[in-house]
């Protein structure tokens, strides 16, 4: 076990803990991205078909990275639960919008659906990250922050329209 629990977190660990976009990855991602597989024996760029087709070797990563990946997955799962709770609260607890009969459902139901989609996406994301860690490759970009931002922005816009329609009716 390498430095497990000694408190020295690498950039890899910090990034995995942060559900933000994965565009600032660590530079020391190993030989997987610019490896010798694309380079011929004389240093030219001829691809070696057998090396290109071969799956990269997988090794078990530092447990801290795996744990950070797991915590990120759990954080997204709680976010998904919060979206479900928010959608349910909007539909069931808010007073009806006068003049807009289905107003609460238009705002709340997409949040509930997004919660379900986000739970599945978090699992897929976590498995992709774990595979990249095992292969010592850069972490893939996550679609979750953009999905969350776009949906919340859309729901907020719809909510504003519903409130305005309700106020003018």
């Amino acid at each position, binding site marked *: 076990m390498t430095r497990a629990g000694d408190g020295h977190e690498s950039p890899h660990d910090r990034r995995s803990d942060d559900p933000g976009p994965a565009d600032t990855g660590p530079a020391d991602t190993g030989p997987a991205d610019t490896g010798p597989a694309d380079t011929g024996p004389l240093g030219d760029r001829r691809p070696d078909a057998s090396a290109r087709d071969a799956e990269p070797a997988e090794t078990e990563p530092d447990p801290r990275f795996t744990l950070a990946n797991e915590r990120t997955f759990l954080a997204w799962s*709680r976010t998904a639960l919060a979206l479900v709770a928010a959608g349910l609260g909007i539909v069931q607890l808010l007073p009806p919008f006068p003049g807009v009969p289905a107003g609460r459902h238009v705002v709340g139901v997409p949040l509930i659906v997004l919660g379900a989609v986000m739970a599945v996406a978090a699992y897929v994301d976590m498995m992709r990250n774990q595979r990249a860690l095992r292969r010592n490759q850069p972490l893939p970009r996550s679609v979750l922050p953009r999905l969350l931002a776009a949906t919340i922005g859309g729901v907020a816009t719809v909510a504003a329209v519903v409130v305005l329609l309700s106020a003018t009716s």
Partner: protein
Amino acid sequence: MSANPRPPVIDPANRTRLAWTRTAVAFAALGGAMLKLSPVAGLVVLVLSLPIWAVTSRRHGLGAAAASPRRLRLVTATVVVVAFAALLVAIFGHSPDSLGQLLRGR
């Protein structure tokens, strides 16, 4: 002048165990809230939070470092089931202007 003391370190496994605990509490809280809106759906969500709690209580130290994909799939499946239950409550729940009532034309 003494050197800068190192901050106290929390074991990553402990942090992960706390994350599992927060997740289990979130499930239970949502189940409790849904219990008020729809007793059956709330009870289902409360029961579903028990396996999450079981995963939490089984984790001990770095020896149990990574939760198996099966357990993580369990969490995902539980959130999806909870969302489905919430959708049913939202559409067909007891409310004078529920979507079910609106679709039936009241």
